[in-house]
Structure formats: structure tokens, C-alpha cells
């Protein structure tokens, strides 16, 4: 009887531990996803544009937390570095520099904004159907997605397996996407670059290579006459 009792309590303990872990996992998952969804809504709903950029950053961070929770730690960290560390900073820059903070974001209020509603509706229905197609495919034709699953192995780390696929099978796609980004960058520079005349520029080589002989001139100044410095 005694051993039975102990077994029983051990079983209970094991159960509570496993339930505990699952519950904690669930708590974290729901916390991050609620923050993600709420901040995504607040991006569009907040009146101050700078606030919406900050909500966007919060959204990125909680999504990268979700990535880390499903074991995609490399993706989560890259998300943080690229989106939060670089892209969102530029967003903030633009929003602050343009001083859009002063113009209040009137949500579904003015006549001007109501013109954009049909376009927004079309885009959001498109995205909605895309998500439905992906989820439906996942549900009813799981064998399509098995190809991708076979690549993921548990023996090597996340980063290694990504690198092994990215630089072998998909090297051309990878290079082409890099080229597209480069073209976009060159395009942006060409569009905004203007050669203006009459702009004073400082050449650092000239500044460094200045010597005493060409910079300083010692003159004997006579009283009541002054000196004519080079025009």
C-alpha cells in the first residue's frame, strides 16, 4: 500500500510538472501574441505617428519572441537586428524629421482619408485570401509542406542548417534577391542625387596636407596703415 501511495504521488508530481511546463509555455505564447496583435492594431489606430512607429517596434519585438519560442532563434535575432535595429530607426527618423507628429492621424474621419478605404479593403482581402490558401493547403494537403520539413534536422543548429540550404540549393535565388536590393539602393540614390553648383565642400586631404608655410604669414604692420590680407 505504502509503495502504491508513493507511486501515486510521484505520478501526480510528474503530471503537475508537465502541466506546469505546458502552462508556462502557453502563458508566454499568449502574452507575446496578444501584445503582437494589440500593438499591430495600435499602429493604425494611434493618433500620434511617432507612437505608431513605437507600437510597430513593439510588434516586431514580440514577433521575434514568438520566433524564438518555436526554436527559430536565428530568425528571431535577425528580425531584431534588421527590423528593429535598422529599419525601424529609419522609420522613426523619417517620421520625426517630416514632423508628421503634429498632424493628427484622423482615423476614418476626414473626407480625404475615406478615399483610401476601398484600396485598403482590396489589399486586405487579398492578404486575407492568401493566408486562407496557405492555411488551407497546410490543412488539406500536408504532403506539400513535408518537403520543407525534411530539410530541418535536429542534429545541427538552426544557423548551420539555414546556411547549408541558403548557400547550396538556393544560391541563385539568394544572389538575385541581393541584386534586387542593390538595384533598389542604386535607384534611390540616383533619384535623389542632385549635383548642385556653388556648394562649398571641405576636402579632408587638403585640410590635412596644409602646412605652416601656406597657412601663416608674418607681416610687419605699420601703425595707421594696416595690412592688406590676400583678397
Amino acid at each position, binding site marked *: 500500500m505504502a509503495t502504491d501511495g508513493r507511486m501515486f504521488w510521484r505520478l501526480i508530481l510528474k503530471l*503537475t510538472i508537465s502541466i506546469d*511546463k505546458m502552462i508556462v509555455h502557453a502563458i508566454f505564447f499568449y502574452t507575446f501574441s496578444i501584445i503582437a496583435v494589440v500593438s499591430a492594431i495600435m499602429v493604425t489606430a494611434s493618433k500620434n505617428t511617432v507612437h505608431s512607429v513605437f507600437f510597430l517596434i513593439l510588434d516586431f519585438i514580440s514577433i521575434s519572441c514568438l520566433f524564438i519560442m518555436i526554436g527559430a*532563434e536565428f530568425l528571431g535575432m535577425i528580425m531584431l*537586428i534588421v527590423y*528593429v*535595429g*535598422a529599419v525601424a530607426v529609419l522609420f522613426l527618423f523619417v517620421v520625426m524629421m517630416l514632423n508628421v507628429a503634429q498632424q493628427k492621424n484622423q482615423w476614418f474621419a476626414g473626407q480625404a482619408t475615406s478615399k483610401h478605404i476601398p484600396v485598403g479593403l482590396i489589399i486586405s482581402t487579398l492578404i486575407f485570401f492568401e493566408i486562407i490558401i496557405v492555411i488551407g493547403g497546410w490543412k488539406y494537403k500536408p504532403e506539400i509542406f513535408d518537403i520543407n520539413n525534411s530539410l530541418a534536422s535536429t542534429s545541427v543548429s538552426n544557423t548551420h542548417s539555414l546556411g547549408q540550404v541558403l548557400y547550396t540549393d538556393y544560391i541563385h535565388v539568394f544572389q538575385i534577391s541581393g541584386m534586387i536590393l542593390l538595384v533598389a539602393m542604386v535607384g534611390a540614390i540616383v533619384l535623389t542625387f542632385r549635383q548642385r553648383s556653388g556648394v562649398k565642400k571641405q576636402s579632408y586631404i587638403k585640410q590635412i596636407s596644409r602646412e605652416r608655410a601656406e597657412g601663416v604669414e608674418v607681416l610687419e604692420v605699420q601703425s595707421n596703415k594696416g595690412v592688406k590680407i590676400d583678397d
Partner: protein
Amino acid sequence: MEYLSIVFQEVYKILFLLVPVLVSVAMIVWLDRRVWAFVQKRQGPNVVGPFGLLQSLADALKYIFKEIIIPSSSNKIIFILAPIVTMTLALIAWAVIPFSATKVLADINVGILYLFAVSSLGVYGIIMGGWASNSKYPFLGAIRSAAQMVSYEVSIGVIIINVLLCVGSLNLNDIVIAQQNMWFVIPLFPMFVIFFISALAETNRPPFDLPEAEAELVAGYQTEYSGMMYAMFWLGEYANILLMCAMGAILFLGGWMSPIDVYPFTLVPGAIWLILKILLLFILFALVKAIVPRYRYDQLMRLGWKVFLPLSLTWVVLTASYLFYFNLLPVN
């Protein structure tokens, strides 16, 4: 209950890490002022406690009893959040720093990426503080600082790639162990120099302290802050400097490894070696502050984008081709 005990253990570990970090931040402020003073033939803080060691404590006490002033036209929530963000980000990064092969709070696979991500998030404390103050000087300081930090992050990222090519892992302990035979400072010496200078720019230290250049911008993004909130910015800044020193020690100076692998040196625990290396780098930081005059802002940007980025990118190609040619690429 089982889970709670795990949580308590972790909290104990975190406190055991954070309290020494905070104390050493206070000490490092004293050291910084002391080194600065000695270079200029002054005494520096030497009144409170032995050698003035308790100066930072006295300063902290002063800040605690000062009034916190929140400007009436500021954006209050973000104004209060900004120093908290700076402080938190400076402290959470210490979770992945290995003090020996086993003494590490979170031995994660992507340790170096985590460090890099957290240090790149550090911009936000400054931008938030500068924008929420709703005042000209803080705003200009914040914009300058954000541009500066984003630019120098790029070259730090490329330098990290250099080290990763030699290691073949993103784990910080693996990076330290890969330097068993030779510290990376020897083969990658130019990268170490560039890392050091970029770290100065990344933490807004002189000669790159333009965001808070007192001659032109009062105190930059901190202008409107007072009392404990100012002190939190200050602590966060110094914690960030220590963190960059730790990063340099781990990437280039062999982390917790003893300099020579012979008997009396190996007895010394790894944590001591790491702390000594961090201190060495920090004293270099302090010396630079005392010796070098402030850069001009356009020169700073030129240095980041036109000198450091091409140099470190070229070095990536060189390292990769060297490793490939001599078949030294780490494969696991």
C-alpha cells in the same frame, strides 16, 4: 512547486550576476574620472572613502534625493520610459557573457547575435529620450546619436562576421574556446583596432561624443533629465561601455582563457581573467577620452562609412579566402 523552485534558482543566479555588474559600473565611473585626472596631472575624486572609491556611491545618493522634473510639454510616458529602456537593455545583455566554460547564465546558440541585437536596440533609449523631451537640443542630440550608432553598428557587424568565419559558431563559449591556441587579436589585429574605435562611437564616448557635445548641445538627449532619471541614463551608458569592453575581450582577447596555458596561470579562475581583460580595455577607453580631441560630425560619418566599412568588408574577403585556400575553414 517544482517550477517555482526553478524560477527561484534562476532569480538567484540573475541577482548574483546583476549586483556585481551594477557595483562595477559604479566603480568604473570612479576609475574613468581617476584615469582622466591623472592624464591631466590632477588628483580626481579622492575625498570620499579610501582613494575616493565611494565617490560614485555619494553621487548616486545625491541623485536619489534630487527632484525629478518632467517638462510639462513633454510626452510623459515615453519621457519616463526612455531611461528605463536604456538601463534595461544595458543590463539584459550580460545574460550571455560567459565567465568560464560553465559559469554563464544563458548559454544560447546565437549568443553573439543576441549581444549585437541588444546593443543595436540601445539607440531607442536615446531617440525616445530626445524626442519625448520636446525641446531642440535633446532632439538634435538624439538624431545625431541615432545616425552615429546605426552607422557604426554596420562595421561592428562586419567585424563580428570576421571572427565568426574563424570560429564557425555563434555561441560565445565556442568563440572563446576557438582562441585556445592564438587570440584573435593577433591574426585579426586591424579588425581589433576598428572594433575598438567603433565601440567608442557606438557608446558615444569621446572623441565621438557629439550627441552630448556640451559646447554645442548642452547635454544632448539628456538635457531635460534630472535626478534619478538622469542617473539611470548615466548608469546605462557606463554599463554599455563595460559591455562593449566585454565583447571586445571575448571576440579578440580570449575571454575567460588565461593568457598562457601554464600551471600557475590556469589556477586563476576564468572570471578573474575576463574582468582583467575588460579592465584593460576600459582603461584604454578612459585614456582615449583624455588624449584625443573631439571629431567633427561629417568626419565621423566619413570615417564610419567610407573607411571602416570598406576596410572591414575587404578583410572579410581576405579572411575567407585565406581560410579557404589553406583549408582551415571550421567544419562541424
